[in-house]
């Protein structure tokens, strides 16, 4: 039987370039727009806007941005890590403990070591989840307590220190916004962009999007899940080191870890990462972290009670995610 000519009516009309762009980056564009609006609002509030003001925004958001990136990777792969904030606190205390009295070069080496330890913690968490078959929420909740306790063990009250050179290099001097911006953009371009396009990146999205189909297609689901938690831990290590550079000390109080975890989830969700997995990226959470940081500053500038800041942050998250999800569902229904 000779093959007949193909029937063009079989394949549905391909989605237009514009529609595809809008689908892939729609959320990001909206978040960036929102950020721009808030940015100019803040700009208009201040009598003068120079390096100091900009640095306050960017360096202040850095910790949440990096934690949000780590959480985003875990959520995209279909999991969640409640211990991420506590891992950050642990990394913060460990680096502050070790870096005290050291010179800048040594601090950088120690930073790399702490980040590696963060990744190792992530591997342990991920392996526990995969081997025990206990849901990730339960396992990471348990590790939240373990890591909070461990932080208190190594540093039982705020203390430690780091080299001034290290602080300026990572978080920038009081009027230098550039280091914080460069580090964040740098990590995104050097770590995330290549990962996203690599086979590992596709596998992360695959197991988050449809774990069963990924398994049938031959993906080693367990191994990729562990890698996701390892990467999350690595970012938590980075966030901890950045916190040491920003504050100049280590703070083991567990309340910080809990708040940080919630902020990381908020940043991820606001940045377009769906809690169901398989959707989103890392740029969104970074922008969302800055948005979340701007809200209390703007409120202070408007003379509104800054204690309302958290309420406003929560409302913003609900409204944005609600609209975003509603739009996504509407698109799917047509």
């Amino acid at each position: 039987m000779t093959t007949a000519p193909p029937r063009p009516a079989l394949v549905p009309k391909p989605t237009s370039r514009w529609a595809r762009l809008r689908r892939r980056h729609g959320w990001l564009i909206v978040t960036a727009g929102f950020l721009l609006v808030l940015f100019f609002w803040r700009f208009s509030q201040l009598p003068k806007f120079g390096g100091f003001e900009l640095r306050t925004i960017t360096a202040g958001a850095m910790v949440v941005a990096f934690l949000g990136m780590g959480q985003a990777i875990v959520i995209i792969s279909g999991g969640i890590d409640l211990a991420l904030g506590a891992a950050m606190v642990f990394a913060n205390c460990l680096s502050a403990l070790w870096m005290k009295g050291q010179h800048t070069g040594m601090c950088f080496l120690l930073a790399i070591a702490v980040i590696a330890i963060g990744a190792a913690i992530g591997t342990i968490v991920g392996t526990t989840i995969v081997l025990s078959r206990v849901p990730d929420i339960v396992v990471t909740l348990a590790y939240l307590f373990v890591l909070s306790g461990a932080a208190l063990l190594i540093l039982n009250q705020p203390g430690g220190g780091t080299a001034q050179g290290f602080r300026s290099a990572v978080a920038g001097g009081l009027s230098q916004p550039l280091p914080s911006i460069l580090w964040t953009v740098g990590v995104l371009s050097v770590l995330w962009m290549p990962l996203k396009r690599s086979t590992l990146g596709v596998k992360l999205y695959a197991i988050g999007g449809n774990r069963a189909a990924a398994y049938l297609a031959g993906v080693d689901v367990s191994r990729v899940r562990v890698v996701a938690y390892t990467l999350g831990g690595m970012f938590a290590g980075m966030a901890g080191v950045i916190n040491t550079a920003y504050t100049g000390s280590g703070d083991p109080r567990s309340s910080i870890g809990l708040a940080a975890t919630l902020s990381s989830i908020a940043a991820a969700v606001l940045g377009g990462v769906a809690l169901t997995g398989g959707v989103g990226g890392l740029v969104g959470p970074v922008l969302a972290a800055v948005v979340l940081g701007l809200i209390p500053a703007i409120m202070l500038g408007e003379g509104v009670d800054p204690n309302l800041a958290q309420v406003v942050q929560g409302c913003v998250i609900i409204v944005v995610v609600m609209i975003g999800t509603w739009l996504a569902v509407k698109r799917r229904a047509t």
Partner: protein
Amino acid sequence: MSETVLQVRNLAKRYGPVVALRSVDLDIKRGEIHALLGANGAGKSTLVKILSGVAQADAGSIMLTGRSVRFRNPSQARAAGLATVFQEPALIGELTVRENLSLTHSDPYQVREALASFGVSDLQFDELVRDLPLFLLRLIDLAKQLVLSPRVLLLDELTAALPSDITERVFSVLREAVRAGQSILFISHRLAEVMELCDRCTVLRDGCNVETFEPRDGGEGRMVAAMLGTPPEQLTARESRVIHHTQEQVPLLDVKHLTVGPLRDVSFSVHKGEVVGLIALEGQGQDVLFAALAGEYRPSSGQIVVCGKPLSARGPADAIRQGLVLVPADRATALLPKRPIRENLTLPLYARFRSWGAIRWKAEKRRIEDVVRRLAIDARAGAAGRLSGGNQQKLTIGRWLASGFQVLLLFDPTRGIDIGTKRQLYVLIRDLAAAGAGILMFTSELREISLVADRVLVLYNGQIIEELPPDTDEETLLSACHGLEVAR
């Protein structure tokens, strides 16, 4: 003389107390297209799972080209040369075609060529998989596996979602692959296709292989007979009941031109005192039909009329309020397994919003005891989850007794239940009908439908294709389920 490329011996698998495969032998020769046939529950899907690496056998051996193999996951099976096209496409909806191909390291050029041979030439690989129709996904999945040039290609109900002209092209591609030395294990309900395509076929029944023969040696009739086997112990037939209803009487349930999901223009009615049986092979749309009747899905077109009033349900709660209740197939989803029996029985009563006050157990006690006695539920086990399958099924039906209904929808109520409890259930169903309810029952137990139904509807490919009297023999019923023409 072509050698055996896949040899399965004494394969066995059980899931807890359920024996899925008893002892299966299978031989597939090099360069042959071998069909695997069997009724629902015969063990086909378990065999596919084991061969594809998704599950592991409890006993038995698999030899692929003479080497003994044991697959721990699908990639091991593929690496050994056994590629499977699953019923559910192994593709991720949120990713593009290109990204899905990169997951399995499939060469896009080769996949494109393979798709062209099926007649699909202008597929953009940057499309998201979830925007593509199901048949295209199956073709992509098939192309991915063909590109691997596997020794054995396992096709699980491949043609179910394909339009017929594509199927022809796929067949010619498969024949070419087989001429080149590959082998194919073809699983299908479509006996006509098996006749057209396959060199040999093996029939599974009750977890064993019972016959292997060439399709032309006996035809579809032989296939159906082999799937059925010898009739089991005869259950005592019920006395024939004469249903008194005139044409003018308003039916309890009237389905008019229902179209939803895979169902097309389905129309039938259930009258007071009637038990209507529905039979079908797997995946012909019966679950969607019951879900739509129960209020879970909104139909695309058509109407469901209950006691003369059209059903407008935003969910099962509305359907229940109008008198349509569903006993689902999966007892696990129907019951609250950790709660005691009495809570399960009275749950529908308290499902309404108003009842938030204290539950007056003493007042309910009599009603509960009445139901328990009537159904002869063995109530020694405290929590519902500990009951035997049969008792659980009685419970799922029983709770509607406590709250009342008009139309009872039963989805495969006797699956996996022992013969004694089955008899009790059939008596109960007939009693309910005699008391004035209307009952629609989907069942996979063809041999028992005569005990309980007044008429039998056959669902095939989303349409009701036949209505048969309940005393029709099993062979004719099964043939009808396969879409074959039957003499009344």
